[in-house]
């Protein structure tokens, strides 16, 4: 059971991998996305996207600025204008 996670910036595709869970800093609060999440769209505020590769594992933080998240059948796609780390 894995969630397909993609992080895309204008200059390149930063990540495209299967992970356990991703916590996204939405404009109206953080939300976690697991596999099988309902279709959802949100703008995100500047902050860290936390990627949990495995259940209970240590999250990996990726700072994003100017972003937008979309959850669809294919998984989670985060479009960000700037990515650090």
């Amino acid at each position, binding site marked *: 059971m894995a969630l397909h996670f993609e992080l895309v910036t204008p*200059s390149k595709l930063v990540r495209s991998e299967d992970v356990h869970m991703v916590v996204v800093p939405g404009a109206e609060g953080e939300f976690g996305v697991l596999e099988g999440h309902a279709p959802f*769209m949100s703008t995100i505020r500047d902050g860290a996207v936390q990627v949990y590769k495995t259940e209970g594992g240590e999250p990996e933080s990726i700072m994003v600025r100017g972003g*937008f998240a979309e959850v669809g059948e294919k998984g989670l796609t985060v479009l960000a204008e700037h990515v650090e780390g």
Partner: protein
Amino acid sequence: MASLKELKDRIGSVKSTQKITKAKQMVAAAKLRKAQAAAEAARPYASRLASVMGSLASKVSGDSAPLLLRGTGADKRHLLVVVNTDKGLCGGLNSNIVKAAKLQAQKLLAEGKDVTFYLVGKKGRAPIRRDYESKIAFNFDTSNVRNIGFAEAEAIADDLVARFEAGEFDVAHLIYPEFKSALAQDPTVVQLLPVPSPGTVEASDAAVEYEPDEEEILADLLPRYVKTQLFGALLEREASEQGASMTAMDNATRNAGELIDKLTIKYNRSRQAAITTELIEIIAGAEAL
């Protein structure tokens, strides 16, 4: 008839020109590969943003739509955003872009609209100033930037959106070279603002939740979409410049080669003629004794 020395100097100078054009051609070929890779890497973001925009724009319509999508309601003042290169030595690339821009301007003027120009890149300034000196609203300088990137696209887009919101123009068109191959770069005109509503929208049956609501997301996405379009245009310009430069320099190198061959033949002929004359003089002198 040029003297032997003159011919020799001429051959030398053409040879050094050929060396320069050859070097420039190889540099352009290497840079072209890089520019093409950058253009390719930018595609996923653009296509995803466009598909999200399409599905959102179809849901939000009428008066609630943001200004960038709805437009000012008028169709009078047009802004032409012309993307040129900063450096020359790239064949007819810039003159083709300028030609396309002037054509568009004439068409709009004939329809009774106002036209202003927003120029990106150095090489478009002089030829457009010649015909439309009073119409140039702004020159955006990219010549100090080594690797053109998203930051420049962002700066241009922010400026354009601010001008649009301040009511300086009603419609903006973007004119840039589209990179087809190293041999062909076609000037392309697209409408930039108000953002044209995408024609094809695949209706998703799944109920999508929005946070905040559709209008706010769309209002947030539209400026980003404009940035992405400009970024795409800048990347296309980079690739086109290198492609055109490579082709132009390849031609120049070949022409220099032909010229060298011709001059060498001429040089050898006159050298032999000189030797023959000398021999005749010696023989004639010997016979006279």
